[in-house]
């Protein structure tokens, strides 16, 4: 198992970036925001499949909640239209509220699950909602600094 990083800041400031893995959007259900749950091969030795899948599924459910076309969104839309959309200057839309929840969730996941494994999730909104970027940092438990040696030492340590 990789060396435990103590906290997020420790990793960001001292560890060196090895590579970045991008989880792409899943358009099979249309233009709604949804990320693929397919596990990227590059992370095979860094994190358990179930954990990453759980993170992506939770994110997807948040986006579904934000983009739901239903009673509340109609009410919000009609109220805003009646006020010529001026109400948006003082009120936060539902989507924005959910985005704040998502950013809190990603921060929490980074602190609890990903930073200890030398990974870092980037909020998709910072990448135009196109990809879920996972930064892979150097595994400090390994002796070598190249990605292949760090990966092999990871697997032998397990």
């Amino acid at each position: 198992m990789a060396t435990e990083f103590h906290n997020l800041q420790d990793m960001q400031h001292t560890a060196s970036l090895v590579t970045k893995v991008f989880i792409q959007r899943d358009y099979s259900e249309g233009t709604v925001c949804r990320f693929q749950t397919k596990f990227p091969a590059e992370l095979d030795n860094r994190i358990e499949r179930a954990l990453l899948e759980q993170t992506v599924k939770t994110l997807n459910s948040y986006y579904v909640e934000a983009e739901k076309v239903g009673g509340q969104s109609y009410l919000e839309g009609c109220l805003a239209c009646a006020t010529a959309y001026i109400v948006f200057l003082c009120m936060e839309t539902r989507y924005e509220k959910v985005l704040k929840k998502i950013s809190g969730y990603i921060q929490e996941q980074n602190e609890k699950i990903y930073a200890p494994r030398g990974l870092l999730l980037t909020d998709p909104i910072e990448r135009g909602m196109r990809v879920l970027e996972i930064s892979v940092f150097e595994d400090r438990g390994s002796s070598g600094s190249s990605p292949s040696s760090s990966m092999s030492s990871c697997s032998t340590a397990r």
Partner: protein
Amino acid sequence: MSAVMITRKVRKWEKLPGKNTFCCDGRVMMARQKGIFYLTLFLIIGTCSLFFAFECPYLAVHLSPAIPVFAVLLFLFVMAMLLRTSFSDPGVLPRALPEEANFIEMEIEAANGNVPSGQRAPPRIRNVQINNQIVKLKYCYTCKIFRPPRASHCSICDNCVDRFDHHCPWVGNCVGKRNYRYFYLFTLTLSLLTIYIFAFNIVHVVMRSVDQGFLNTLKETPGTVLEVLVCFFTLWSMVGLTGFHTYLISLNQTTNEDIKGSWSGKNRGQNPYSHKNIIKNCCEVLCGPTYPSVLDRRGLMQEDSPAAANSEGPCSFDNPVAQTTKTTAPLIPNEHTPDDIKPSIAAEKSSGPKDDQPPAAMQPPLASPETDAETSIAKNQ
């Protein structure tokens, strides 16, 4: 002799690629050519001012004071919708950062395998199945991304826009996912305002002519003639445009898709985005969630620059041209696809004079097999 580097904080909008103009420290985002937008403003404000100055006093006294009140409300709503359409981010997709672009390139090369030298590489297309319909996602050479479904690259603004409808020179901005409903409400309420002013002009002329005679009426309220002229021509184009967009909304299609014939002809009835129900389609487009902007315009970032005086005021109107070249790699050419130009050319299909903004900066593509394959296939279609 070493140069002194100054690190300063800048707002992200100052470093955004693309050909947009930003105002009010990044709060306002428009296209570069704003001349026709000023004309739109002038026509609306001018005509309404004439109406309030000449017709309203008479009508308020002789008919009802509700008439000017309603006209004011309608005018304010039209202006609010126009400014919201023009000033907001239409749904611009930010360009891929270098790591993401490289990741995609590697995926493409892995998928293509070894291309024998002298042969063209296959076109960069990803197939996705949406609601049992195969949709092709094209690669954008400028933004270095595979465009999401319904997104398109606007060559005038040099940005990929989500759910791209068309580039409208009359509002001075692209119409896309985030501002389509404001654009539609603008056309709808402007049609109503035009009909309202036109109708009450006629009423006013008739009522006054009964008292004073036709020629005297025109002498007393010379603005009437001008208003009637403007309203007459505007009416036909605006009502036509509103009708056209109502038709598109009921089918959940964009102008871009309609022009390209993506879901018409032999493909009719296969639009995977449509709910097959007019009410549901209208509700989704007009009352759906309000999407946030994914372009962080007002965020702060560090910039290293040599010690030189920068004379940018807080409200600078033009991005320096050099920015457009900063994030694009020099070896990969700008995409030049004919279908991106069509939406801007047919932007106002039913309006009178077609003021086309010529697609700016059409650089000759560098020799690249991907570009040639893409454009040749586009032509063959």
